């Protein structure tokens, strides 16, 4: 997380008419991280992404990409970034190879370099014998692979993906995630827009939760979840225990355990860090408790989202 600053967003505002789509956003994204912008549809994620990719001009505030201003030095920025938009942004009449040839021209690659990279990209997208078929008949996953290959052809330092797995089947989703993880291993900075919480949870090093144009929370998925109080272990006993206070003290002494409450037939432990379930069970039995059940619950990113925005991500997405 100590990488150089890749993207610096300062007091960013974008207004459409009188309604602000982005309302004073400050954010620093570092080189080499997979960063997620998380929020419901209409939260301002796509607008933010379009400003970062030079497609929209900010109303006020500044954005710089590796020190280049997205408005004043748009061409320098465009050379440094790859962009995979939300829609199935392919030309259904062109083949995969023709897509790559088009983008080789748009990024001014010399012919010999273009030839090598296109060969390499076609191998990576793994279309087997369909290299020369128009992409219109491809599955969603195949189209997405072509799109990502086009976005990487000029070897950008940052790749932007807007809803990369929207509408994809489970298998294709997994393939896109794998591809993104491999890019991270190669040192690429990746910025993802998503309203899938599991995607953000699995894939992103850090997340910004955005709602109504404002930053609501920022941190790694673990940090955000821990911020809500960490994991909870609930121990249910078959019958009430003799010395509840003693049990409470014993449980609290376990390394990693935070707040503990014991009442009647239940002990509830909030974990500050990971703590061994075995040790917890041992302590309960040593205090004479007869175990009936043990529940272990993680706070989900969904709960984090509700906590910071006051509503669920999905319902908003459907509206």
């Amino acid at each position: 997380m100590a990488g150089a600053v890749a993207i610096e967003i300062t007091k960013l505002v974008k207004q459409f008419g009188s309604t602000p789509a982005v309302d004073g956003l400050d954010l620093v994204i570092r080189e080499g991280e997979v960063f997620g912008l998380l929020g419901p549809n209409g939260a301002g994620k796509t607008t933010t992404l379009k400003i970062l990719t030079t497609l929209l001009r900010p109303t006020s505030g500044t954005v710089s990409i590796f020190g280049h201003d997205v408005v004043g030095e748009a061409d320098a920025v465009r050379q440094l970034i790859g962009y995979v938009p939300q829609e199935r942004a392919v030309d259904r009449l062109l083949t995969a190879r023709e897509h790559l040839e088009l983008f080789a021209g748009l990024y001014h690659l010399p012919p010999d370099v273009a030839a090598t990279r296109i060969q390499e990209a076609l191998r990576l997208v793994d279309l087997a014998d369909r290299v020369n078929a128009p992409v219109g008949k491809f599955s969603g996953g195949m189209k997405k692979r072509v799109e990502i290959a086009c976005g990487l052809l000029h070897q950008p330092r940052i790749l932007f993906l807007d809803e990369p797995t929207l509408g994809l089947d489970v298998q294709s989703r997994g393939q896109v995630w794998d591809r993104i993880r491999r890019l991270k291993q190669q040192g690429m900075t990746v910025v993802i827009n998503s309203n899938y919480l599991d995607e953000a949870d699995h894939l992103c090093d850090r997340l910004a939760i955005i709602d109504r144009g404002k930053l609501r929370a920022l941190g790694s998925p673990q940090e955000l979840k821990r911020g809500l109080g960490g994991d909870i272990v609930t121990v249910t006993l078959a019958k009430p225990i003799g010395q509840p206070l003693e049990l409470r003290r014993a449980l609290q002494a376990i390394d990693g355990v935070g707040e503990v409450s014991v009442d009647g037939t239940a002990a509830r432990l909030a974990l500050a860090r990971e703590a061994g379930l075995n040790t917890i069970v041992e302590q309960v039995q040593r205090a004479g408790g007869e175990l009936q059940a043990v529940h272990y619950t993680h706070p989900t990113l969904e709960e984090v989202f509700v906590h910071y925005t006051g509503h669920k991500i999905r319902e908003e997405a459907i509206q």
Partner: protein
Amino acid sequence: MNRYWQETGALTLRWFRRMMRERMTLIFGLFQPMLWLLLFGSSFKNVASPQAIGTDNYIAFMTAGVVVMTVLNSGFAGGVDLIFDRETGFLDRLLASPIARSSIIVSRFLFVMALSALQILVILGTALLLHVVPATGLSGVGAILLVGVLLGVGLTALSLGLAFKISSHSGFFSLVGFITLPLIFVSSALVSIEHMPVWLKVIAVLNPMTWTINAVRSLILDGWFWAQLVKVIVALIVFDVGCVTLSSRILRRAVG
């Protein structure tokens, strides 16, 4: 400059590749003008009196009209592909690359101009098979191509402007469909303007299609009339400058 031609070339190649994939559109685009000549020409030739059109060969008279109608159709269709690019988000991909914004527009012009020139040659070739030989010969064909392409530039510019002004492709097609036929009928495409009612004549004289048709017709039927030809070329250049200025204002607002 090299960079500019590399990106413009890549974009232009894309339009040609798209056209080659849409075989049906391509075939109809080339055959429709031939049908115009064959069907309309055959059915109208006994209706149109030689005094009204100034020649006894209606197919020769109509060839100029078909040339310009074809340029009109191709020019007005010039913006369509960009509407689809806008709707699919592909345009954003193009705009996120380090290209001059104008290269997208220039590539459309190059494509439409090449397509129109090809169509004009097919029409003149068909006319030749129907024994219509241009009075000005091979250099006359060159002049017809020049005049046709000049009209096409202005129409393509209008279409591109419209593509960014209108929000959906169905709206675009409705509008273009609505204005195309009337534009043909208020021109000298099918009849000579001398025989139109006065109010129609006034509109027809202001219609850039009429200027182009008359120039092309004169090259086919009569021979070289330099004064008229130069006048039409200048008028078309003025028309083009007007259209390009209007559209570039819209485009600059749309693609920054």
